[in-house]
């Protein structure tokens, strides 16, 4: 049933556009162009952050950090396979998407672990990354309580995600 949601949503946008006399072909191409420019702009960030993260993982430091925090995750009911992903998520959206793809490939696209990872990925953003770029055009460097609140909410998303997916599956 829920598999129909996205196709119906897309159909609605197209039909509404046609109804309003929009040249859907031209509009779509315009959006696609912006998408390509966006991808081009974020590619250096993706590559740079991935290098740092791959080095961090290859050096064994990520595993060490995951091992250190594992009791906390077990206690909260979060599958420990997701520890590196959850630790990485606040730093890098693209890096955590890469890890997410690894999780999907390893555990299967319909598994519990993949679904918890999907919920975490979908319900939290890259706190440190956006803290850097959101304020990039201003002189504001003091974000007050913004980052602690954001990190708390992001971590809560992981705890709730593990719980809600278990209840729904």
């Amino acid at each position, binding site marked *: 049933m829920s598999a129909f949601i996205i196709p119906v949503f897309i159909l609605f946008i197209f039909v*509404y556009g046609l109804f309003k006399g929009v040249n859907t072909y031209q509009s779509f191409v315009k959006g696609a162009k912006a998408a390509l420019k966006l991808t081009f702009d974020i590619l250096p960030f993706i590559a740079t952050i991935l290098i740092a993260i791959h080095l961090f993982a290859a050096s064994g430091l990520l595993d060490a950090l995951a091992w250190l925090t594992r009791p906390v995750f077990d206690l909260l009911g979060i599958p420990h396979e997701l520890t590196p992903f959850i630790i990485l998520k606040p730093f890098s959206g693209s890096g955590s998407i890469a890890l997410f*793809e690894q999780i999907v490939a390893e555990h299967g696209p319909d598994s519990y672990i993949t679904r918890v990872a999907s919920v975490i990925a979908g*319900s939290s953003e890259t706190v440190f990354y956006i803290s850097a770029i959101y304020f990039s055009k*201003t002189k504001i460097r003091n974000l007050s309580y913004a980052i602690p609140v954001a990190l708390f909410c992001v971590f809560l998303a992981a705890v709730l995600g593990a719980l*809600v997916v278990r209840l729904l599956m």
Partner: protein
Amino acid sequence: MSILFAIMVVASLVMMIITNPGGVLSTSLGAAASGVQLAITLAAIYIFWMGIIQIATDSGLIDALARFMRPVIRWLFGKQTDEVNGLLATNISANMIGAGNAATPAAIEAIEKMSTPEQKKATTPMIMLFVLSATSMQILPTTIIGILEKHGAENAAFVILPTLIVSTVTTLLGVFIVKWMGRKRRVKPNVQAQPVESPEQPEEEGGV
């Protein structure tokens, strides 16, 4: 992010020079290559979704959404200029359909428009926008569903409901914490001493 990047790279290099010096270059170049590959995957996802969003923009659907959201924006951010309101609506709606990267430019501009050139400290509406983006209230986690489908998921849409539940809870919590902190700031006596600007304007210094 800059400090963290430096710490991660230096610590990893020190560690790898001890344990596996031969792996440094191959790991780095492999990571860069997977970055390029990932960008191609993302380009495919963005081309499709941003094409759809453009149709929704040109048909006035996004504007309608912004009008529909006006009371919410007013409640969250207080009184802002029309221009800022439009940017906030764009940001929130783009985040809602999972196009976080499309939402980012609007947020950068909104924060710029909300600040004064010499301002050093974030105000409550800016923190609200930041926390809202961080908890990303999503109706459609499009990127994630795209990846799941690429890997042959039988029921990728399963994740929509739990994502919606979780992001609703964390977003509401984030909003209430920011509102509560904002009010605490507001009742501080030294702020009320100068009634000039909006009460959200924080005092210039004073620890924590």
